[in-house]
């Protein structure tokens, strides 16, 4: 893990709510590939984008983003 890694649950939240990458990207005003890079952990969003993602899913930002890996479901 590099010192700057930020983990996120965007894929899970998106799957849970049946939202496509393109729909999420459209709602946030970003390119759909940006959502893919975020999900793969290859891009860490700005604070502004992170807060907007959390607001979109109507959850606190720490539910979506963490500096520690999220525990796997069922573990």
């Amino acid at each position, binding site marked *: 893990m590099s010192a700057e890694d930020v983990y996120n649950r965007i894929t899970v939240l998106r799957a849970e709510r049946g939202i496509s*990458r393109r729909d999420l990207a459209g709602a946030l*005003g*970003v390119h759909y*590939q*940006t959502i893919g*890079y975020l*999900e793969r952990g290859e891009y860490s969003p*700005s604070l*502004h*984008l992170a807060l907007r993602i959390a607001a979109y899913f109507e959850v606190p930002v720490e539910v979506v983003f963490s500096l520690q890996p999220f525990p796997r479901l069922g573990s």
Partner: protein
Amino acid sequence: MSGWWERRRRLQAEKLQDDRWHHLLDTRRKRRRLAGAGVLALALQWTSIPVIWFAAPSDLARNITISSLAISLMIYLPVVSLLNVATKGSTGLAEHLLDERQVIERRRAITVAHRATTWVLGGLFLTAALVTNRATQDTMTIPTAIIYPLAFVLWLTHYVLPLLIAGWRLPDPPPEDD
């Protein structure tokens, strides 16, 4: 800014989302080959400079310069179009048409390109210093024909390097899962 200009830019941005050429750009290896071809086109442009310096004015210099320009453009035009599609216009479009990741990508490419053009200009400066130091007289004759190609190749290098660098560095796009 006029509405016409803004509409044109937005249309350009939409065209760059075209996925028709995706199969030519879907792996880093393919994009790096394209960027390499772009560097080759640029290098061909640079080869005309020493040819003009040493051989102009002559038919040989003219033929080599025109041929290298023609071959270079045949490579350059498709390569630049495809790289613009691959990078989704991150180096070509106005910043307000890009998202934050694309803006960061663009700034990184411009930073690296700036460093590269600094070396190019430094090399040119050293060459000029060497040539003038070796001159035995106070004045020297420089072929007039070198001015336009040199100005053009410097402009082209400055213009296209950010795109070539962005194309070279671009990670593989995430697969479509929807």
